[in-house]
């Protein structure tokens, strides 16, 4: 464990050094994500200029959900961005050999290799929106609710990571799975708004099948109503751990099927 942390630190420092080398790139990435988010917010603003509340939620509450949903997304983006490359080209080009020849866990190595600072854009927007909307969102704040709420963040992040691990692992069998990651990951759009606006089938789908609703709506619902922590927070913990375990299985199975690109 300590060895893993040490390796992670060394790789991350390397990453940050590279970052200093390409400052303009870092700025472009972070600013791009910032603007992308700002436009999402402008959209909510324009809608709420016409209606006082949406599906029973006030403007501040919707902004809070939106902001919170960006934090697990950003954390996952910050830490595990290299999985995209596994899906898109690392396996296809046979570059995955590199990870197999080193004396550390390949999955750990893949994840540790990239520290994607572009994600700062999402994190800044997420925290900013939460700070902006929290005072008027009518939250039910007690020491217990705050603790549980903050505790849910790593588990929400785990859901993103689990989905990315299992979809990128498909590349071991079909060579390139970038488009599948894209397709599944794109469903995080559902996390930005209350699930009550969707039809029942979709609600069940984004809660249990591709559980992105758990990364935004449910934890916030708990903070707003203070009710049902067993499902709103406990459900997140259980489902995320379950999905993570499942994704590790898919990954390990996939690893056995990996064959290099030859030549």
């Amino acid at each position: 464990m300590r060895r893993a942390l040490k390796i992670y630190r060394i790789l991350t420092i390397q990453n940050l050094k590279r970052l200093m080398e390409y400052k303009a790139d870092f700025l472009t990435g972070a600013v791009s994500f910032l603007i992308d988010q700002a436009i999402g917010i402008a959209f909510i603003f324009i809608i709420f200029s016409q209606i006082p509340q949406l599906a029973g939620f006030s403007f501040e509450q919707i902004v809070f959900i939106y902001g919170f949903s960006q934090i697990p997304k950003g954390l996952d983006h910050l830490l595990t961005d290299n999985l995209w490359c596994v899906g898109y080209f690392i396996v296809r080009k046979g570059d995955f050999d590199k990870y197999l020849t080193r004396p550390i866990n390949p999955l750990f190595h893949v994840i540790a290799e990239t520290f994607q600072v572009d994600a700062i854009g999402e994190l800044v927007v997420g925290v900013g929106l939460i700070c902006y909307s929290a005072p008027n969102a009518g939250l039910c704040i007690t020491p217990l609710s705050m603790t549980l709420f903050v505790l849910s963040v790593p588990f929400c992040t785990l859901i993103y990571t689990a989905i990315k691990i299992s979809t990128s692992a498909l590349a071991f069998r079909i060579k390139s799975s970038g488009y599948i990651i894209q397709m599944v990951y794109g469903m995080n759009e559902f996390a930005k708004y209350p699930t009550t606006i969707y039809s029942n089938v979709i609600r069940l789908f984004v809660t249990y099948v591709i559980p992105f609703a758990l990364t935004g709506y449910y934890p916030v619902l708990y903070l707003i109503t203070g009710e049902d922590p067993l499902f709103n927070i406990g459900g997140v913990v259980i489902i995320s751990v379950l999905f993570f375990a499942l994704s590790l299985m898919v990954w390990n199975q996939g690893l056995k099927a990996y064959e290099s690109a030859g030549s």
Partner: protein
Amino acid sequence: MKLNKLKRQYIPFMRAGLQTMIAYRMNFLGFVIGGLVYCFVMYYLWKAVFTSSGGATFMGFSMTDMVIYLFLSNVTGQLTFSSASNDIGEEIKDGSISMRLIKPVNTDLSYLATELGCSLMKLIVFALPVIVGLEVYRFCVFGMVEFQPINFLLYLLSILFAYLISFRVNLCFGFVAFYVKNLWGIGILKNSIINFLSGALIPLAFMPEWLKMILEYMPFASMSYTPVMIYMGKYDVNEMIFRLIMQLVWVMITYALSRIIWIGAVKKLSVQGG
């Protein structure tokens, strides 16, 4: 004679585009499904907005209008999508652009022909089915056929203009690769800006009056909003002609702009190794 030569030179590029689409069809399917998921999220969001506002129309749009707007914007976006900025950026980075430059063809036109091949494929396998679907939906809602062949033909014409503008704007973004390496970040930035300014995310009609005025005259509106409005029959004859002319003007302006940048940039181009 000249036309024949053009045909002989560029048809292979077009065929290559078509073949790429077929070879990477799963990739394309991924994007299509991603786009449709987005449409459905928006559909439910708007449904909630309509329910919450209590009226049958929201700022001049009925729910049926909104559904057609959403899906048609997505289709239009797919058809006018240009990956020129990525392709040219990659070629500048890895130096393979030199292979394109030494061929006896016009560089822009070769990109254009390849992409037209892709768009043709998208039109047949994706856009037409969605449009048929939308018309069936309209038929179910109104109980009669609302399809206007004239509007559809004008929509196709307008999409062609929209595509040409999108292609040129993309080309300009692609030249940014001469200066920055984070093409992926630039891609996100470009997409979200175009999505917002072109009205694909939210109809320009919903924007504050002053913003709407500005955006309607910018090239972005010509890239998605104009064709969709034409299809939906939201413009009268005079306005339609005016909008089409404006599109044409933007085609010319963006063409000139990308040429100027290109001529400047190609002088700076240095390819390492080979």
